[in-house]
């Protein structure tokens, strides 16, 4: 069969992109790991301080990533505490209980939120503080809790979408069986369908943890600083891994600090990839259990 010229171009281009794109990405990632490899180790985290002292908070760490890791950990934990309940609840509601009209409206709102630039959430937190200062709390300031609230808004759509999909993936036969056994609608939902979908929902939560850990733009507005040490409390300033990477790339003083930046970037990349892999494993297990395919 004779091919037209556009088709031949298309085919050549698709083969080219199949080589070009992986090369580009792997070059970037490979370079990152190549520079970071020599510094990967406990010294990257704790600097000159003994690890045990640093972990217990007895000695502050100034030349390691430990404060940033702790900051990111608390940030993600509080974000998840705030976001999981509304997010998963909203997803279940959308999939099981909402009328078609509600589905359309709420679904549109969640879609809109999903596409929202993360910096707008940061701006929202910033506005919230300005508002509080003008009205009830003149000395309100940005901090860990505010950043977590804004991040919670950012990961909400991820949680809603995954909970919704997980509930929809539970097979219809289970619903029929529940009805045949005389379950009421709410009994079936909470004692049968929700436990069945739990693994899929958990996969979504892990995915959301990854989103919360990587984001920089939100915390830029809401109280991240470069040298805060360990976070002092819910309203204190904090350090975060992603912000440290940005900060080092623009303000690094010496080679040592630059290498720490490479180490931090490689570390964050590893964490994100591991979280993604965990989410995939959970979701695959869930789908295989209920649909008999990966």
């Amino acid at each position, binding site marked *: 069969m004779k091919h037209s010229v556009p088709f031949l171009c298309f085919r050549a281009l698709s083969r080219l992109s199949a080589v070009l794109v992986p090369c580009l990405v792997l070059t970037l990632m490979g370079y990152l790991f190549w520079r970071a490899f020599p510094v990967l180790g406990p010294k990257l985290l704790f600097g000159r301080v003994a690890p045990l002292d640093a972990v217990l908070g007895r000695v502050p760490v100034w030349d390691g990533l430990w404060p940033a890791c702790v900051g990111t950990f608390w940030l993600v934990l509080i974000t998840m505490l705030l976001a999981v309940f509304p997010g998963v609840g909203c997803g279940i509601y959308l999939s099981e209980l909402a009328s078609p009209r509600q589905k359309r409206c709420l679904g549109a709102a969640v879609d809109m939120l999903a596409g929202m630039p993360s910096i707008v959430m940061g701006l929202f937190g910033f506005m919230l503080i300005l508002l509080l200062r003008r009205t009830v709390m003149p000395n309100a300031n940005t901090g860990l809790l505010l950043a977590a609230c804004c991040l919670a808004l950012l990961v909400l759509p991820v949680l809603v979408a995954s909970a919704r999909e997980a509930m929809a993936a539970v097979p219809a036969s289970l619903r029929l069986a529940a009805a045949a056994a005389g379950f009421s609608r709410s009994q079936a939902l909470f004692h049968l369908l929700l436990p069945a979908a739990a693994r899929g929902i958990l996969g979504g939560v892990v995915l959301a943890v990854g989103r919360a850990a990587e984001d920089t733009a939100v915390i830029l507005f809401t109280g991240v600083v470069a040298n805060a040490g360990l976070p002092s409390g819910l309203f204190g300033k904090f350090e975060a891994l992603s912000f440290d990477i*940005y900060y080092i790339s623009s303000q690094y003083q010496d080679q040592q600090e630059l290498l720490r930046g490479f180490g931090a970037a490689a570390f964050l990349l590893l964490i994100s990839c591991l979280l*993604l892999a965990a989410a995939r494993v959970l979701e695959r297990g869930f789908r295989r259990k209920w649909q008999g395919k990966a």
Partner: protein
Amino acid sequence: MRKAGVFFRPAGRSGEAGLAFIRVAVAFAMAGMALLFLMVVAFALPVFVQGGGGGPFSWSWAPGRGEFGILPMVAGSLLAGGLAVVPGWIMGLCLCCWLMAPPCVARPGLWRTLVGALVRVMTAVPTVVYGFAAVFLLSPFIRLSLGGSGFSCLTAVIMLSVLILPTVVLVLQAGLGPRLEAVAMSGAAMGLSRMELLWNVVLPVSRGTLLSAAVLGFGRAVGDTMLPLMLAGNAPVMPESLLSSMRTLTAHMALVTSNEVGGAAYDSLFMAGLLLLLINGCVSLVIRRMGGRS
């Protein structure tokens, strides 16, 4: 299932308490979203109404002289988004077709499986890590090979197109995959390869999917903060060429909060937030009409 029943005990035996929980969760989520939209609009509206000289709608940003125009940044954002979509969309389309059209469907081959996995991993790579790698690899490369400072429109656009690539590929795969499967059998009977089927049959009827992938990519490129902030140079003027420095709305917002202390500079910040919200709203609207999923 006894264990599961214990696990969801808060829902109550009849599940009525659980329904109340879910309603509260939905109320929380909706309150958060409503507050976000309301705040952004409420803070920006006074600026809109005020108008006048030195306001956000002029072409000059010079805080020292009391000029706070953000139009160069608006142009910068649209330019960066538009330029990044072209290579991102073309490469995404080609890569997606290549992934979907192996010579033998049962055995896709190692390279194809790996590239497919890589595209999934790319969705999880933090943007700040992309930015960090590009600051130390891509921008020196551009400085040495093409001249300029290396921190330019072109650098940011290249990385933005890498950033949106996985989004484009996944949206296209979700849209084109079922259509290809629907005609795969009859196509094979006529002796057409999968690539020929895609080119001659599937792509011409998938205009909506193709467009919504492009629009979604555009939305992500415009909304990203860290890449333009780290790579584009951030001079608040219209870029003269691909190699000159520019500033996008998102980067502008990040810079204003870290450098200015209030007054008219903040007004321009709120205006920028509203503009981003509106751009994102248009993107969601187009995707809804096209029926693609976000």
